[in-house]
């Protein structure tokens, strides 16, 4: 949305808060595209899709499970890159930190969805909610690690303290995850089932999976964009102290009138 136009000053002060304070025209179209994609995914997944020969109705869960897993991994990669961007002195800026934080938060959300849908899919296709194969175990550790990362972000201190601390933590996670992955692989070498049955999906099913990945990606970008802006506003409020910010805000409204 665009900024509140002068015409809005005729309304009461309560409504002078913009309805979509973190939105722009770009993010709006992005959101609409994501919504259309998600709607198609739900309609196709629940109504149109045929059952798979082997996975039966489990294949319907895959339309959500695979894109969310993919996006969760992408989100954590983005967090890692943004953390490095912050720590690298020449590009040091709090915007990296906010992107890292927003991306980790969205990643944790998608990872939770991945784990839940994966368990339910496993119950249908394998007959069990969980197996200790390396992929599943590493995913669970990623989830816990980033839950911890988000907790560290809330510890307080100045913005740059938070940024530095969490950036270091995110890079340590990059160290941790391969080690967890390989140790679990050595630990249980027998459970090497592949999670996705390949080559058994017809064209429309593959197309829908593709639609799922695209619309989850759009959704991810939309969420991170907005979350990152909310973080920026929260930082601004912190900087000025609440009272100062409120005073400035009131003064601004006086001028608008």
């Amino acid at each position, binding site marked *: 949305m665009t900024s509140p136009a002068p015409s809005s000053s005729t309304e009461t002060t309560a409504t002078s808060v913009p309805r979509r304070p973190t939105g*722009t025209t770009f993010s709006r179209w992005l959101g609409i595209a994501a919504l259309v994609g998600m709607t198609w995914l739900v309609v196709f997944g629940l109504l149109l899709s045929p059952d798979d020969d082997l996975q039966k109705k489990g294949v319907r869960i895959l339309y*959500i499970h695979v894109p969310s897993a993919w996006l969760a991994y992408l989100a954590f990669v983005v967090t890692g890159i943004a953390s490095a961007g912050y720590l690298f002195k020449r590009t040091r800026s709090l915007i990296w930190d906010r992107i890292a934080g927003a991306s980790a938060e969205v990643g944790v959300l998608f990872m939770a*969805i991945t784990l839940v849908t994966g368990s*339910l899919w496993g119950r249908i296709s394998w007959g069990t909610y969980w197996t200790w194969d390396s992929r599943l175990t590493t995913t669970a550790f990623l989830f816990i690690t980033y839950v911890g990362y988000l907790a560290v972000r809330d510890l307080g201190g100045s913005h740059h303290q938070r940024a530095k601390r969490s950036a270091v933590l995110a890079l340590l996670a990059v160290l941790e995850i391969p080690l967890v992955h390989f140790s679990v692989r050595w630990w249980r070498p027998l459970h090497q089932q592949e999670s996705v049955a390949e080559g058994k999906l017809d064209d429309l099913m593959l197309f829908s999976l593709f639609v799922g990945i695209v619309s989850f990606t759009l959704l991810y970008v939309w*969420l991170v964009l*907005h979350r990152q*802006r909310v973080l920026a506003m929260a930082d601004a*409020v912190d900087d000025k102290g609440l009272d100062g910010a409120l005073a400035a805000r009131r003064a*601004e409204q006086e001028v608008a009138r």
Partner: protein
Amino acid sequence: MNQWPYVLISYALSLGGIATYTWRMLRRARSMASKVTEEDRPWT
């Protein structure tokens, strides 16, 4: 085994989770926006 409950639960939890997160974030955005000035929202 009736598989529909598993499918429906996974759709409900996924979409419900995303919707809840989005809703809470936008609500927070609005409450934050009432405390900051225009120049703290350079994207608008």
